């Protein structure tokens, strides 16, 4: 057993150097606004120009074939440098792994390069008004048409869909089949004829997600991922990505914890040992999450249901860490700023990508082996 990070140190040095020279001195406007979305898209282009937007992908799609360790190191440097949030994350972290596993060569060649450059930004479309945690009850339909499918119905809580270019999601392609069967995984342009999108204000008013209405939207066969009717399996095979390391990398929490310690140094009352304990806990948990990341990439076996353990841990850590920061700021904690933006974002964590209650069901049944009860479903979930 060792923690020898030296194989990734040359890469770390390169990334650090580049970020030092290029990270915007003042934070970009929130990516959940029109102006901010455009600024974040431009930033993606900048990253892509030096092949830092998708480091772990193969070179032919704009990556560097980075090892998992190099990827973890990249993320540490990225967030430590205070670099902008990743507006492309839905595509990069959720759709791309699905394509790598189930996509055709044509799909890979067509979809991945513009995703890597930020030219096409993706939104997910899982949930429906009647299908949240119980995702398998979804009803939006895909009906066979000449050379493709016609989409009808409604999706909601579709993160980034207010400004994104394309979307992906599950649709019921066999109306006779029930629940997990007869679903298809499809991609569609958000400006397609027949799609109406209505942005939804997040709890702070920013249009972080949208609802989508489909009225006979034509999708050609080439935009189906995997076999028609096999969508649930396709989606589930990479659900671990959004609950696991790839969506919320350790570097992100380590950087936030370091900033929290700095906030304690500048704002903390040394006599307030209760608050000091919470600062300690946030750092210890971020540190544990970082070490767990090294453990995960050291294993040969896949993560599977373990990603549910991950999801519960990081989402609750994120909330606790930001609550502690707001408490340190005292009466200024309610004022707009980076800590408040982080806090608002963290509040969604225990809900998206499968609520933490669903994750606890997965942990109890699939890892601990407790008996399955009726109606305890666990969908692939969604993320903002």
């Amino acid at each position, binding site marked *: *057993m*060792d*923690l*020898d*990070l030296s*194989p*990734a140190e040359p890469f770390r040095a390169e990334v650090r150097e580049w970020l030092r020279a290029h990270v915007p001195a003042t934070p970009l406007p929130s990516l959940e606004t029109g102006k901010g979305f455009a600024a974040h898209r431009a930033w993606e282009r900048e990253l892509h120009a030096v092949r830092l937007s998708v480091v772990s992908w193969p070179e032919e799609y704009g990556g560097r074939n980075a090892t998992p*360790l190099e990827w973890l190191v990249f993320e540490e440097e990225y967030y430590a440098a205070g670099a902008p949030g990743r507006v492309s994350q839905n595509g990069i972290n959720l759709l791309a792994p699905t394509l790598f596993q189930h996509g055709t060569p044509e799909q890979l060649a067509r979809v991945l390069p513009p995703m890597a450059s930020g030219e096409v930004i993706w939104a997910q479309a899982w949930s429906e008004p009647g299908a949240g945690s119980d995702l398998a009850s979804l009803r939006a339909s895909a009906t066979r048409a000449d050379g493709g499918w016609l989409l009808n119905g409604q999706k909601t809580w579709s993160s980034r869909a207010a400004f994104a270019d394309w979307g992906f999601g599950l649709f019921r392609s066999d109306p006779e089949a029930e629940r997990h069967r007869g679903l298809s995984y499809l991609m569609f342009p958000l400006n397609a004829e027949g799609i109406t999108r209505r942005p939804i204000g997040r709890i702070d008013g920013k249009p972080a997600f949208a609802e989508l209405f489909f009225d006979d939207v034509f999708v050609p066969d080439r935009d189906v991922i995997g076999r028609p009717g096999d969508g649930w399996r396709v989606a589930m095979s990479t659900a671990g990505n959004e609950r696991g390391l790839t969506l919320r990398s350790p570097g992100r929490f380590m950087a936030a914890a370091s900033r929290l*310690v*700095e906030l*304690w*140094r500048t704002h*903390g009352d*040394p006599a307030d*040992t209760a608050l*000091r*304990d919470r*600062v*300690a*806990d946030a*750092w*210890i*948990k971020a*540190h*544990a*999450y970082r*070490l*767990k990341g*090294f*453990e995960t*990439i*050291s*294993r040969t076996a896949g993560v599977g249901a*373990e990603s549910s*353990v991950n999801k*519960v*841990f990081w989402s609750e850590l994120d909330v606790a860490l930001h609550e502690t920061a707001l408490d340190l700021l005292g009466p200024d904690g309610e004022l707009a700023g980076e800590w408040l933006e982080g806090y608002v974002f963290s509040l969604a964590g225990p809900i998206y990508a499968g609520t933490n*209650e669903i*994750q*606890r*069901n997965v*942990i*109890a*049944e699939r*890892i*601990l*082996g*407790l*008996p*399955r*009860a009726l109606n*305890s479903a666990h969908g692939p979930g969604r993320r903002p």
Partner: protein
Amino acid sequence: MKFVLDAEQKLFGETMDKLLSGAGTPAVARDWAAGTQEPGLALWRSLADAGVFALAVPESAGGAGLLPVELVTAFGEIGRHGVPGPYAETVAVAVLLARLGSGPLPAAWLPRIAEGSAIASLALPPAVPYALDADVADVVLTVDGGTLRSAIPGAIRASLDPARRLFSVTAGDVPAGVAAPAGARVAAATAEAYDMGVLACAAQLAGVGRRLLEVTVDYAKTRRQFGRPIGEFQAIKHHLANVLVGLEYTRPLVHGAALAYGSPDSPREVSAAKAAASDAAYLAARIALQVHGAIGYTDEYDPSLLIRKARALYSAWGSPASHRARVVSSLAGG
């Protein structure tokens, strides 16, 4: 980078588990609590033969060199099986003696500790005010105002964990064979010994928590109420899922602290591990008690030994608050 146990380390853990699984440890712990220590002492010798104490003793003194990863592997199993005895204290004394350097005292005790023919205990007030199992220890030390002294055991103090026999101590003479019983070297040796005790205790807590989760999951699968196993109910599932989450993020901290042991980060790393392990094991104990219901609240039910041990170890080798304070001060200064 390979941050998982290698094949040999894994095998060592499995060997320990096998040895202890066949040793009837709950009965050994109950005998130990009642003052019948022979079965526990026999187990001590078996664990010495398996090489546990040699892991904390330099090769020059008959040990295997200091191997913290192997030590936390051993202590995880010692915790999981609820083995009674001053194990953490003995390896802490081994580190203390080894760091004092050459001299008659280390030379007298280290080889015997390594082979299992000597048991040690110590008190390091204020965090470790009592000497565990001082009545069976061959050597009991304390550090009093920066000076290394023999500790003279006084009254036994009853612990929540009946297998933890705690003794009040008074500082006695400087033990024979110590050239310089005070000064920078003793201070450094004491600090390292404390960190070793903290690390061993954290590993033990993680093992206690792990076993409590195992037995509680088994119980929830078989205990039936309302015509079905209680493990089918979400209220039970979510409790147990929370226990697993806590334990899953304790293991990397314990391993990280083992790898960092002896480095400048060592105090912070062992404190992070101990704070997390205390919380994770204590949650495991509370949930074990709750899920078992009344049976878990009985003296005679074996898992209740571990439920009690989790709470006792929670505050042993430094309170969680003291460890959190150490983490913050190492990061933010002050």
